[in-house]
C-alpha cells in the first residue's frame, strides 16, 4: 500500500522528467547538436509499440492462455527482419514528397485524393480513440491498485477528483509543447523522440526489475517456477501452446500477420519510424535491434504470469495487474512504484505519439479542407494548422477520457487492442500495393478501404459493442434482417474461426480483392499515373538535384500568386525565405525574376504539403494556378524528358570532371619546368661569383627546361585541337617509304649522339596512303625519339619495320631498351603518364604518345605496345588504305 500523494508526486515527477528531457533535446537540436541522430535512439523510439496494453496485458494473456501473448511480438520481429527494405522505401518516399502521416501517404499516392485522406483519417480515428482510452484506464487502475482506492478504477468518484483526468491534460500539454512547436515538418520533433526513447528504456527496465524480483526474490529461480507450474494440472497447459484455447495454426497466423501489419501502419509507428526518421541507414540496425528489444521485454512475461498464479492461487488476483500486485503483496512498495512508473511510461508514450500523429491527420485531412471551403480568399491562415492541431490533441485526450469513464469495464474496451490492429491493417493493400504496383487507382483504393472498413465494423466492432451490452445481440445470433448468412461472426457461413481471424480474413480478402479488381477496371488517370511513378520508382527518381526529378505538371502560374499562397499558410516571413532560397538556387537576383515553371509550382506545393497535407496543398495550389489537364501519354513523355535531362546532366558533370583533371595535370606539368628555370636563375643571381663551369651547366639546364616548356605548350594546344575536333587535317597521297626516310633523317643526330644503330625493314614498294603527311611524320618522330631516349647508351639498336597487306599498312618501331613493366603498359597512352624509371627518365611531356594515338585513330588505325621487360619495347600502328572520313 502506498500513499496517494506519494504515487501522484512520483508520477508527476516522472512527467516533469519527460518535459526536461524533451526540452533539452529540442534545445540541442536547435543548436545543431542533435541527440537523436543515431540508430539506437531510433530503435528505442520504435519501442512505443509496447503500450500499457502489452505492459500489463501480456502477463494477463499469458496467465490465461500460455504462449498466446507471443504473436503480438513475433509479428513485428518478422516484419523488421524481413520487410525493412519496405520501411526504407516508405521513408524515402515520405522524405521526398514531404509526407507527414499515413493518410497523407495513401492519399498522395492516388493522385492526392482528399476523399482517400479523409477515409484513412476516419478509420485511424475510430480505431485509435478506444485505444487511447485503454491507456488511461491502465494508468487509472494501476493507480487505484497502488493506493487501494478501488472506487476510482471504475470511474466512481466525481470527475474533478479523478487524477486520470489531470494526467490526460498534462499529456495533452506535453504533446502540444513538443509536438506542435513548428509547422515546417522537415524539422522533426526532436524533444518528443528523445522523451519516447527514454520511456522505452524506463518501461523495459521496470518490467525486467519485476521479472528479476519474481524469479529470484519470490522464487529461487525461473526453473523452480516452471517446475512447480508443470506439477499443477491447472497450470501445466500454460507452458505450451494450449491454455484455454487449443493451438490452431490459423489463429496464430492471423495474429502474427496482424501484428506484422500494425507495427508499420499504426499511426504512432508511422510517426516514429517514417516521419521522425533522421537517416535511412538507421533502419538497418533497427531491423535487428528492435526485435532484440521485444525479446527482452517479453523474457519475463511467462515467469511473472506463472509466479502470480502460483502465489495468489487461481482467481486470487487479476492477472492483468500481477506486475503491480506481486510486489505489493510481498511488501515491496518501492518496486511496485517502479513497476507503476514503467506502466505509466508505456501508456504516456503511446498517447503522446498517437496524439501527434492523429492530430496531424485530423487537422490536415478533415478540418483544413472544411475551413478552406468556407474561407476562400487571401486571409492569413499561417497560424491555423497549428492551432487546429492543438485543439484536436486536447479533444482527442478528453474524448479518450470520456470513453474510459463511460465504457471503462466493457468488453469493447478490453479487447480494443486487437480490434485497433485490425482497423489499421486495412491500410495494407492500398499502401503496399501503391508502393510496388503502378496500376493501383484512387477508385480501387477507395473501394478496397471502404469495404474493408465496413466489414471490420460489421464483423468486429459491432459485435464487440453488442457484447458490451449496448446493442441487442439478436443480429449476432440470427444475422442482420434474420438472414443467417449475415451473422457477423460467421459471415456467409464461414465457421470454425475465432472472431478476430474471421474478421481479418473477410475484411482483408474483400479489401485487397476490390482494390485490385476496381483498379484494373480502368486505366490510371494522368494524376494517378504520375504519382504512381514517383512512388514505385522512388529510388530511381529521387536524386540530389531537385531538377532531376520529373514534374508532372503543365500550365501557367505567377510567382506573386504562389508567394501570396505560401505566405497565407506558412507566414509571410517563411514564404519570403522560401522564395529567396529558390532565387538563389536558380541564380537570379530578384524573386520576381524566378521563372514560374512547373518546378516552382511543384516546389511550393511540396512545401505546403508539409504544413497542410498533400491533398489540401494540391487543392489550394490548383486554386491559384492555371493548370492544363494532362493525359497519361503526357506523363510518359514528361518522364522521358526528365530522364534525358538527367542523363545529359550526368554527361556534363563527367565532362567537367575530365576537364578539371586535365587542367590540374597541365598546371602541374607547366610548373615543373618553371620551377627548375626559376631556381637556376635565382641561384645565379644570388651568386655572382659562381664559377663559369657551374654557370654553363645551369644555363644549359634553363635552356633545356624552356624548350620542354614550349614543347608542352604546343602539345597541349595540339591535343586540345584534336580532342575538340577542330584539328586542321589535310588529305594527301603519302609514300610511307619516303616518310620513314624523312623521319630517320630528322632523328639521325639523336641516334648518333646516343651511339645507337637504326635498321629499316620494308618492302620495295607500298601503295600510296591518303592522310595528313605532317601529322604522320609527327607520330613517327615521336616513336623514334622515344626509342632514342630509352636505348642503352653505346649499344642501342632500333628497328623500323614497314609491312602492308590488302587492308592496311603497318609500321613498328622496336628498341632494345629496358622495356615497360606489364602493369605500366596500360598507362603509356594516357595523358601525363610517362613511362620509364623516374631517375633517368628523359624529359618528355607525357603527351607525345596520347597525341600520336589520337592521330592514328583519326585515320582509322590502331596503335599498340608490345613489351617484355628487359627485352625492349615495340610500338606499332596500322593505317587502313581506305577508311570512312570522320566528321572532323
Amino acid at each position: 500500500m502506498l500513499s496517494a500523494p506519494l504515487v501522484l508526486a512520483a508520477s508527476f515527477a516522472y512527467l516533469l522528467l519527460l518535459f526536461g528531457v524533451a526540452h533539452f533535446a529540442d534545445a540541442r537540436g536547435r543548436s545543431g547538436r542533435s541527440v537523436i541522430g543515431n540508430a539506437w535512439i531510433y530503435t528505442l523510439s520504435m519501442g512505443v509499440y509496447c503500450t500499457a496494453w502489452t505492459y500489463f496485458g501480456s502477463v494477463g494473456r499469458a496467465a490465461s492462455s500460455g504462449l498466446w501473448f507471443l504473436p503480438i511480438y513475433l509479428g513485428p520481429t518478422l516484419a523488421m527482419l524481413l520487410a525493412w527494405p519496405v520501411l526504407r522505401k516508405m521513408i524515402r518516399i515520405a522524405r521526398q514528397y514531404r509526407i507527414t502521416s499515413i493518410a497523407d501517404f495513401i492519399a498522395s499516392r492516388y493522385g492526392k485524393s482528399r476523399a482517400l485522406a479523409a477515409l484513412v483519417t476516419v478509420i485511424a480515428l475510430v480505431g485509435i480513440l478506444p485505444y487511447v482510452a485503454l491507456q488511461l484506464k491502465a494508468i487509472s487502475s494501476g493507480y487505484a491498485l497502488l493506493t487501494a482506492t478501488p472506487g476510482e478504477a471504475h470511474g466512481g468518484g466525481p470527475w474533478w477528483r479523478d487524477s486520470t483526468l489531470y494526467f490526460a491534460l498534462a499529456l495533452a500539454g506535453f504533446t502540444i509543447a513538443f509536438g506542435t512547436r513548428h509547422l515546417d515538418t522537415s524539422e522533426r520533433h526532436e524533444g518528443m523522440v528523445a522523451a519516447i526513447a527514454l520511456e522505452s528504456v524506463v518501461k523495459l527496465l521496470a518490467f525486467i526489475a519485476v521479472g528479476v524480483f519474481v524469479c529470484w526474490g519470490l522464487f529461487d529461480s525461473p526453473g523452480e517456477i516452471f517446475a512447480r507450474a508443470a506439477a499443477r494440472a491447472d497450470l501445466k497447459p500454460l507452458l505450451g501452446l494450449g491454455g484455454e484455447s487449443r493451438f490452431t495454426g490459423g489463429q496464430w497466423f492471423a495474429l502474427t500477420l496482424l501484428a506484422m501489419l500494425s507495427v508499420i501502419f499504426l499511426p504512432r509507428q508511422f510517426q516514429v519510424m517514417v516521419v521522425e526518421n533522421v537517416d535511412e541507414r538507421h533502419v538497418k540496425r533497427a531491423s535487428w535491434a528492435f526485435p532484440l528489444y521485444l525479446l527482452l521485454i517479453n523474457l519475463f512475461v511467462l515467469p511473472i504470469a506463472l509466479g502470480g498464479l502460483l502465489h495468489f492461487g487461481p482467481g486470487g488476483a487479476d492477472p492483468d495487474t500481477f506486475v503491480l500486485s506481486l510486489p505489493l503483496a510481498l511488501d515491496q512498495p518501492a518496486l511496485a512504484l517502479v513497476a507503476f512508473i514503467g506502466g505509466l511510461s508505456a501508456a504516456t508514450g503511446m498517447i503522446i505519439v498517437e496524439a501527434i500523429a492523429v492530430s496531424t491527420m485530423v487537422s490536415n485531412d478533415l478540418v483544413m479542407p472544411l475551413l478552406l471551403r468556407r474561407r476562400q480568399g487571401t486571409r492569413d491562415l499561417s497560424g491555423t494548422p497549428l492551432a487546429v492541431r492543438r485543439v484536436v490533441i486536447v479533444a482527442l485526450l478528453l474524448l479518450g477520457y470520456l470513453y474510459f469513464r463511460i465504457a471503462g469495464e466493457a468488453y469493447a474496451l478490453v479487447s480494443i487492442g486487437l480490434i485497433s490492429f485490425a482497423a489499421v491493417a486495412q491500410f495494407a493493400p492500398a499502401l503496399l500495393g501503391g508502393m510496388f504496383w503502378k496500376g493501383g487507382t484512387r477508385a480501387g483504393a477507395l473501394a478496397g478501404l471502404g469495404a474493408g472498413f465496413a466489414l471490420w465494423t460489421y464483423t468486429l466492432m459491432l459485435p464487440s459493442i453488442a457484447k458490451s451490452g449496448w446493442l441487442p445481440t439478436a443480429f449476432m445470433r440470427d444475422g442482420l434482417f434474420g438472414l443467417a448468412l449475415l451473422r457477423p461472426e460467421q459471415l456467409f457461413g464461414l465457421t470454425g474461426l475465432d472472431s478476430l481471424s474471421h474478421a481479418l480474413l473477410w475484411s482483408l480478402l474483400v479489401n485487397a480483392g476490390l482494390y485490385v479488381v476496381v483498379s484494373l477496371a480502368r486505366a490510371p488517370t494522368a494524376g494517378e499515373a504520375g504519382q504512381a511513378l514517383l512512388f514505385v520508382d522512388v529510388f530511381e527518381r529521387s536524386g540530389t538535384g531537385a531538377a532531376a526529378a520529373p514534374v508532372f505538371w503543365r500550365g501557367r502560374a505567377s510567382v506573386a500568386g504562389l508567394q501570396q499562397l505560401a505566405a497565407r499558410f506558412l507566414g509571410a516571413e517563411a514564404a519570403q525565405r522560401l522564395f529567396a532560397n529558390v532565387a538563389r538556387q536558380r541564380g537570379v537576383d530578384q524573386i520576381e525574376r524566378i521563372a514560374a515553371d512547373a518546378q516552382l509550382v511543384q516546389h511550393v506545393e511540396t512545401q505546403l504539403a508539409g504544413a497542410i497535407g498533400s491533398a489540401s496543398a494540391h487543392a489550394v495550389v490548383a486554386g491559384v494556378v492555371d493548370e492544363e489537364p494532362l493525359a497519361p501519354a503526357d506523363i510518359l513523355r514528361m518522364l522521358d524528358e526528365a530522364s534525358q535531362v538527367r542523363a545529359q546532366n550526368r554527361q556534363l558533370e563527367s565532362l567537367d570532371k575530365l576537364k578539371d583533371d586535365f587542367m590540374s595535370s597541365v598546371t602541374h606539368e607547366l610548373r615543373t619546368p618553371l620551377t627548375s628555370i626559376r631556381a637556376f636563375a635565382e641561384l645565379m643571381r644570388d651568386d655572382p661569383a659562381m664559377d663559369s663551369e657551374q654557370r654553363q651547366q645551369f644555363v644549359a639546364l634553363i635552356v633545356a627546361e624552356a624548350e620542354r616548356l614550349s614543347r608542352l605548350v604546343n602539345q597541349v594546344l595540339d591535343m586540345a585541337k584534336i580532342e575538340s575536333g577542330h584539328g586542321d587535317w589535310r588529305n594527301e597521297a603519302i609514300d610511307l617509304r619516303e616518310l620513314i626516310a624523312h623521319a630517320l633523317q630528322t632523328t639521325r643526330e639523336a641516334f648518333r649522339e646516343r651511339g645507337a644503330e637504326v635498321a629499316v625493314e620494308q618492302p620495295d614498294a607500298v601503295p600510296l596512303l591518303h592522310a595528313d603527311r605532317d601529322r604522320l611524320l609527327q607520330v613517327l618522330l615521336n616513336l623514334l625519339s622515344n626509342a632514342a631516349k630509352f636505348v642503352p647508351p653505346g649499344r642501342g639498336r632500333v628497328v623500323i619495320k614497314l609491312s602492308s597487306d590488302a587492308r592496311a599498312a603497318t609500321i613498328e618501331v622496336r628498341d632494345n631498351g629496358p622495356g615497360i613493366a606489364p602493369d605500366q603498359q596500360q598507362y603509356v597512352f594516357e595523358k601525363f603518364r610517362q613511362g620509364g624509371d623516374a631517375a633517368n627518365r628523359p624529359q618528355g611531356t607525357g603527351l607525345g604518345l596520347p597525341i600520336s594515338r589520337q592521330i592514328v585513330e583519326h585515320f582509322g588505325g590502331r596503335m599498340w605496345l608490345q613489351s617484355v621487360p628487359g627485352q625492349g619495347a615495340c610500338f606499332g600502328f596500322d593505317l587502313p588504305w581506305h577508311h570512312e572520313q570522320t566528321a572532323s
Partner: protein
Amino acid sequence: MSKHVLIADDEPNIVISLEFLMKREGHRVTVARDGDAALDTIRRERPDLVLLDVMMPGKSGFEVCQAVRADEALAAVKILMLSAKGRDTDLAKGSALGADAYMTKPFSTRELADKVRELLGPA
C-alpha cells in the same frame, strides 16, 4: 652548423637546383628519387630535414609524411612539403598530416632557404 637534409623529388633538374642551394647553405645532402627510397632513407639516416615532393612515383609525399609522423622515433625529422599543385586542399592536407611547412612550386630560392633556416633553428 651543418645539418643533414634529404631531398626527395623525382625531377632531376629540380634535385640539382635544390642540392646546390642546400649545399650552399652548408648542409649535407642526400637524394631520394621516389617515395619508397625517401622513406627508407629517412628511417635509416634520420635526416634533420626532408624537402618532400608531393607527386612522386611509388609512395606519394603525403604517404611518406604520414608514415614518418606515425613513427615516434622519427619525431625530430622536420618535413617541408613541396608541391606543383598549389591547391588549398593540398596545403590543408599537408599540415593535417603533420608537415612542418608547405611551399608551392615554383618557389623562390630565398624564401625556401629562409624557411629551411627557420625550421632547422639555432639549435
